[in-house]
């Protein structure tokens, strides 16, 4: 059982599984948005995570630093908040479908109440609960402290704080200028731009799913699959040399990994055309350049044709193309991941002369 889990948790399988689960979640959202499902999900997660902790190796890896503890809270909160907001959304959708209004728009909820005591007592209660939680957490878990800083000896693996491990995991597939600078920058730009791109007037101030299906699906995909799940991979499934380790696998720094990743240029000139790499950089990288440019130049019109036209009309040019660019940039990550896993692709464009590697 544990061996099987160690095998199927490898990013290429587990990422695919998470994507499939995500699609199923969106497709069968009605089934998921029930109390029964929510409680079974929480129970199942608790049992599964509890079972993980019965394993010595997992416990050892997990408590290598107490900084991993918050991730358990994060995982529970993310799953619970996702289920709960879908649950409330579908409830409202059903009310609307039956000719009613969302729960939040019922006259008794529109009624105004005094901040004192209705709001301030809730806040007081939340503050006390949060304080108790933090104090108990602080007593039970010591904050980590390792050996004094030693610039001459790097630990292996050297990991960033857990909330950046999704970005560090992206470094497997992209160079730092993409994974560490451009894509995080685009995440920030994209988040700020959301309210200006989303012209759907519905779903303002109440939970819903069907009235904002596209917006919610895109956001949830980025949040659950590309952010939270990559953090989990980076934290729990990456050991020395950033090599994949199963949850029950001992971190052995000598684990051998066949790293024979190949560039597109080598595929094209050496394997396909059976000759050496040309001297001219642009000629050498021509296949990768065509692929990259084609991704946008051919991909975007195709996207317009199959999905886009109704959005283009509704959103206007600027909003629409900003959104398409962001979606296309986001999708480069899963595309590169699958290219790496399927054909050991290293770089699509490899120009070390300019540090320009994609």
């Amino acid at each position: 059982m544990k061996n099987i889990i160690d095998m199927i948790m490898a990013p290429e399988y587990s990422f695919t599984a998470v994507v499939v689960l995500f699609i199923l979640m969106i497709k069968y959202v009605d089934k998921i948005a029930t109390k029964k499902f929510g409680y079974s999900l929480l129970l199942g997660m608790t049992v599964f995570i509890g079972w993980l902790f019965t394993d010595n190796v997992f416990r050892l890896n997990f408590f290598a630093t107490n900084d991993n503890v918050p991730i358990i809270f994060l995982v529970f909160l993310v799953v619970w908040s996702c289920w709960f907001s879908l649950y409330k959304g579908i409830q409202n959708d059903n009310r609307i479908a039956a000719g009613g209004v969302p729960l939040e728009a019922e006259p008794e909820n529109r009624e105004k109440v005094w901040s004192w005591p209705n709001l301030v007592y809730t806040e007081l209660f939340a503050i006390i609960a949060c304080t108790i939680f933090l104090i108990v957490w602080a007593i039970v878990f010591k904050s980590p402290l390792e050996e004094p800083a030693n610039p001459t000896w790097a630990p292996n693996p050297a990991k960033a704080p857990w909330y950046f491990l999704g970005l560090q995991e992206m470094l497997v597939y992209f160079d730092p200028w993409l994974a560490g600078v451009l894509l995080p920058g685009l995440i920030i730009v994209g988040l700020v731009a959301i309210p200006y791109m989303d012209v759907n007037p519905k779903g303002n101030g109440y939970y819903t799913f069907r009235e904002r299906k596209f917006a919610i699906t895109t956001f949830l995909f980025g949040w659950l699959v590309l952010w939270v799940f990559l953090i989990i991979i980076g934290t729990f499934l990456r050991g020395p040399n950033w090599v994949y380790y199963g949850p029950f696998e001992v971190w052995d720094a000598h684990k051998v990994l066949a790293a024979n990743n190949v560039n597109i240029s080598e595929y094209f000139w050496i394997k396909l055309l059976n000759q050496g790499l040309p001297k001219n950089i642009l000629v050498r990288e021509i296949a990768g350049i065509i692929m990259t440019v084609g991704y946008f130049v051919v991909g975007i019109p195709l996207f317009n044709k199959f999905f886009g036209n109704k959005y283009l009309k509704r959103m206007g040019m600027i909003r629409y193309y900003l959104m398409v660019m962001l979606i296309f940039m986001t999708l480069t990550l899963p595309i590169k991941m699958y290219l790496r896993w399927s054909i050991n692709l290293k770089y699509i464009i490899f120009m070390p002369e300019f540090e320009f590697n994609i």
Partner: protein
Amino acid sequence: MAEKSFAEKVANTQVWKSIFRHGPPNNARNRAAIVAGNVFLHLHPIKLKKSGVQLGYTWCMGGLSFFVFLALSVTGVLLMFYYRPTAEYAFNDIIGMREHVPLGIMRELHRWGAHAMVITVWIHMFRVFMTGSYKPPREFNWGVGVILLVLTLLLSFTGYLLPWDQLAIWAITVGSNMAKATPFAGHGGPGAALATIGDFVMVSDKNDVRFQLLAGRFVGEATLLRFYILHCVFIPLVVSVLIAIHFWRIRKDGGISAPL
């Protein structure tokens, strides 16, 4: 005539009345006066829609983010009394907090509070998204919130270096190495090699963005001081201003979101 209780007598003194300018909150007028007259409580409107006070709607995550930020400010100030940001003392001061303070949990509170704030801010953003609360008229405030989220991560990141242990310097080394790859502005980034005039290299490891961030070519004592100031003074000041804007705009944009 009924005898006045002790509490009533206290509430009738000049001292009490000078501090609390309103009677007990048992009628509408006093409830309004409490919220409007107290500098902290007046962050709230006097009345608000019922949906906005329901835990099932707000999850209280924004409020808790603010509370944890306050708790971090308090614990952080206490820690500053015992911590010197130099390569010689930093690590030993942290050891001191652990070894010499009986039942000391101040550093734990600060560290776990920092992690908790990252989580509450994320979940707050998630809730705001799922209720469509970024939609007009709240677009700008969502943007302020995104900047606050980034600053929360930066606060946590700069604080990560301060214990000056292996975990700290190598996490910061890994993180700040990203800055090296900034296009045109980092010496390892695309385009940097193009920025030369004759033999003169404009973007090198001695002047690129990573150098500005670390105050050096690697994580050293100058970095520690720089991160200390960023962590304890600069970013908290910016965050405080942005929180003020964030809260002000919540009120000005119509309070906690509700169906139009």
